[in-house]
Each structure stands twice: as C-alpha cells, then as structure tokens.
C-alpha cells in the first residue's frame, strides 16, 4: 500500500503541471463569413421577325430572386453582367427597367446596339453597393424587369445572317454575409 499514494501524487502532479497558454475565446465574436456567390440570371431572345412585326418588343419578367429574405438580408454588394448580342439588321435601343412590386421603376439601364452584320456582342457590368456602385436597395426591392427593345431601323429590313435575333444574357455576382 505504501506505493499507492505515490500514484496519486503522480496524477496530482500531472494535474498541477498541466499547463495551457492563455486563450481568448472572445475572438470568436470577430468572425465574419462573407461569401461571393455567382449564378445565371435571365436569358431572353427575340427574332427579327417579331421586331419587324411589332415595331418593338416590351417584355415583363417576374424576378423575385433579389427580394427574398435569404438574399436581401445578407447582400452587401455585387454586380450584374449584361451581354447583348444583335444579329438583326436593326439598330436597337434596349432599356431594362427594375420594377418594384407596384410596377414602379426603381432604376433602369440603357444600351444601344448597331445593326448586323457583323454580329454585335456587347458586355456591360453594373455595380451595386459599396464602394461606388448604385444603391443595393434597388435590387432588394426589385420584383420584375421590363425589357424594352426599341427598333430604330424600320420594319422591313432583313438581316443577311442566318436566324437573326437579339439575345439578352445576364449573370449576377454578389458578396453575401453568411455569418454576422
């Protein structure tokens, strides 16, 4: 039995000697998780025939991707890339209106495209949020787009290119606060 106290002295010593560097767990409060998410947005195409027939096109598109809480509560900043491809024989002005729930215009973008040939592909990037973009609230309150195509070349010309169209492409990239 005389050795049994030695054992407990050992474990007691172990406990006493057990050391730890000073830790500051409050640092966890500083953790920020901000992700950069990107994805496709809207694709629209229209034929030259339709432009010739109607003289112009105006299309309303529901888009609630920006005003859902998951996005609106977390978005910090971002950008939308628009790509316009014109293979029609028309000089076109494209206007994109950002509309709120009541159909009121929150903001708009204007693009002008020269007639084909050759096929014209133009990229535009519009920034939102800090440091120098448009107000992020525009997107948070957007519930639909109005895409208007104004034909400035009459309604008789026909492109020499096969299957002439106006194509509207878009994608969006945003910084989102995952943890706050």
């Amino acid at each position, binding site marked *: *039995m005389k*050795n*049994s106290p030695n*054992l407990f002295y*050992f*474990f007691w010593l*172990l406990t006493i*000697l*057990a*050391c*730890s*560097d*000073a*830790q*500051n*767990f409050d*640092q*966890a*409060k*500083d*953790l*920020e*998780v901000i*992700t*950069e*998410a*990107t*994805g*496709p*947005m*809207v*694709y*629209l*195409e*229209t*034929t030259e*025939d*339709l432009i010739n027939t109607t003289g112009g*096109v105006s*299309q*309303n*598109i*529901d*888009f*609630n*991707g920006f005003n859902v809480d998951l996005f609106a509560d977390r978005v910090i900043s971002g950008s939308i*890339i628009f*790509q316009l491809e014109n293979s029609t024989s028309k000089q076109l002005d494209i206007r994109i209106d950002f509309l709120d729930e009541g159909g009121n215009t929150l903001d708009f973008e204007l693009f002008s495209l020269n007639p084909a040939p050759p096929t014209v592909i133009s990229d535009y990037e519009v920034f939102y949020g800090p440091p120098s973009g448009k107000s992020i609230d525009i997107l948070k309150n957007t519930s639909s787009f109005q895409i208007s195509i104004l034909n400035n070349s009459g309604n008789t010309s026909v492109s020499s290119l096969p299957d002439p169209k106006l*194509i509207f*492409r*878009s*994608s969006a*990239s945003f910084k*989102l606060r*995952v*943890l*706050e």
Partner: protein
Amino acid sequence: MRLRYFLLCILMLGATMSQSQNKQLLYDFNEVPQALLLNPGMTTNFKWYTGVPVLSGVSFQAGNSGFVSNDLFANDGIDFNTKFRDKIINGMDYKDELSGTYQIELINVGYRSKKNDRVFYSFGAYNEGDAIGYYFQDYALLAYVGNTNELNKKYDLSHLKTRGEILNVYHFGINKQVSNQLSVGFRGKVYSSFLNFNSTNNKGYFVTTEGDRNLLNATLDADIEIRTSGVFELKDAIDDQSNGSSVPGILTKRALFGGNLGLGLDLGFTYNLDDRTVLTASVLDVGFIYHSKDVRTYSLKGSASTEGLEVILPEDIINGTGQWRTFVDDLKALVPYEVESKNFVTFRSTKLYASLRRDFGKQIGSLKDCYCTSSVGGNSNGSIFKNSYGAQLYAINRPRGPQVALTAFYQHRLGNFMSLKSTYTIDKYSFANLGLGASIQAGPVNMYLMTDNLIGYTNLANSKYASFQFGINIISWGKN
C-alpha cells in the same frame, strides 16, 4: 451570433480523434473489471465485483485532428478571421474528423458461478454518447469563399458525413475458461437510444460552368439525407413546458427501454501461446438499433441544371407574369426537399481489439490454488508476472472506413496491490501519444485512473487530444 457559436462548437466538438473510443490503457488490464467490457474473453480471477454506481467507469475522450486551440484562440494579436481562414478553411480537409465520446457506467456487477468456477458472469448498464463528423470541406468553401472565382469546381456534397447518438446499454456477459490455454467470452447487449442523428451516405455535387445559351450554368446533383430520432420530442418538451411532456420524464422513459431499441453482442478470447505469451482479441458492438419513434428524415434528392430564367420570344410573349414562380417550382420539382417520418436502422460503430502480451520478470504468485482476496491479474494459468510488454491493435469502423491505431505497452506490477500500464500509440493523426494508467487494490477496493496523451498536458492549448477514465470497484478475488 448564435450561428457563429454553433459553427465554432461544431468545429471544436467535432474536431476529434481517430483514437476516439480507443481504450488502449484499459484493454487487457486484467486487474480492472471494466476491462471485461473491452474483452469479454479476458482472463478473470475475480470471485465477484461490483462497481460503485455511476463511479465505477467514467471515461471521456475528445480531440481534434485539424487544429489546436492555440491556432484560433491564442492571444497573438492576429486577426481571428485570418486565423480562421488559414487554419480551418485552408488548413483542414474532408478527411479531418470531428468526434467525441463519453461513457458513464451506471451499474456493473460480476460474479463467479457457484456450479462451475471457470465461468464468470457480469452484467450492468452504462450510458454512452458518441459523435463523429468529418470536416464538411466543400460546404465550408462554398459558404466562406463562394463560387464566383471557382467556375467548373465541383463542390462535393459527400463531404457532409456525420453521425451521433446517446444511448443506454444494458448488457450481460459470460466468461469461461475453456482450458488452461483458452478463455472465451460473450456479451449480449440491448441498446435503448435517447437520440440519434446520422447523415453518412450523401452523394452529389454543385458546379457552376459557362452556359450554353446564357452566360452561366448552375447544376445541382444531390442525394442528401439526414436522419434523426428522438430529437424533436425533446425539443418540443424544452420549447413548450406547458404541453405536459417533461424532459426528465422523456429521458427516464428512454433510459428504461422506452426509446428506440437495438441488439448487439461482443465476443472475445484470451489464448496462452505459452506460459508467458498471451494472445487476445475481441470484437465489440456488433449490433444495430431500429429507429421507429420520433423519427424524422430530411432529404434533398434529384438533379437540376439551370441557366436562369429563360424567355423565348415570340413563344413566351403572352407570359407576362408568373415566370419566377414557375421557374422556382420547376427547380423544386427536380430537386425536391422532403421531410418524412420513416423508420430506419443504424449500425453501431463496431470495434476490434487485439493484443500480444509477453510476461517477464519475477513471478508474483499463482492464483491457481489460491483463493485469497488480494492477488490480482494473471494469465489463464493464474500466473502473475511482475512485468508485461506487448502490442495492441485497435480498429473501429467509421463513415469513411476503418480507422486503425497501434499501441505498444509496458505493464509493471507492484505486488498484488498496484499495477501500472504505460502505452505509446500511433495512428494517422499522432505519433506521440503516451498514456499512463494505474490500478490500485486497497483491500477490497479497487481504484483505477488512466489518462492519455500525456505530452499534451504540458500545454493543453496545443493539444489535439485528451482523454481520461477512472472508476472505483469493490472486488473479491479468488475462484471460490
């Protein structure tokens, strides 16, 4: 804020060890009755024993394969976000484990058969909790970095791999000395589960690529399932104390076979290759639990690829409204998220132990003809030697396949009243795990205390792993 702490808790709790559940110090420690729970075929020289309720076997193990506390919480003036990014996001990968385990014996009793002194019975109950999660690397990358600059990267959804449970185990074991060379044992178990969660067979990916028509294409191919049992009745009881369900009442019911039940068994043997060489092996927790009460399964299964909301004119010119709703509904239909109450079966984490022991030094005494109350340990011949050394193997089945640990040990006996065992364990996470255990026999009282990763105690903030186990038993030695 709560989400942040939740994330950190998951990381800290989870970041545990390959050694989790490995009780290399206790295994084949014949002087301690709890070693019978690790090898029901262990050599036994107890006449009877009883554990002190709740104190006879307490063990806890926790650790971290990916980072140490100092990496994140040292007072080093480095921005926490920088450390988090370097050590967690960029420093860990999907093979890093997140796990921990504890076990508390409630009752443990053993007695030798009066009809056949070569047969020893033991029974009891213990409460056990075990959880493991692997670092969900691609989910974390998606949440922390995002996909903007990661076109064509396939985020692997199988990185979500976790399971955990709290249960009571009721057991009854039979140990028999078949011959002077061989002892065998069997232990039957009934599991009564308090709660369980598991998500281990997920598949799929998320990827963003250049689109065919639009600028980008996003594809989700998911086969994800998270199954739980016993969680929501407890949650409801905690949230709404007025509905008549009390948490203690629910826990008591589940502790006493009112939870989800299962069956299991342990098998083991000890074989004397010669007078001083002993081979042992055991397989533990070959069993299952059938979950039929308070079950809930969340699933996300399907495949969808989108290039955004598409409007083709003139076909869609009349569809002025509702495109978004249709777009979202179509995606949901392709990858439906469902919550169901369906029964399921979980298999326990089966463990395997094996050891080869060589005894040497002075023979302390023989229990073969001695029915005294103070001699302990020994091989099947009853011989006890002052020293032993050997090697042990441990393996456990985990969601990513078996994990193995190798241990070298040396055991020294100070008469019949104290035994010390030291271990050196290696596995894929650590090559410096030294452990020390001791058992003291003070009259009929047996006490044991074992701790692992001793080097880690020099600076706990730099340690990835810590474990301890202790217990108090009342033992009568001898075969009559």
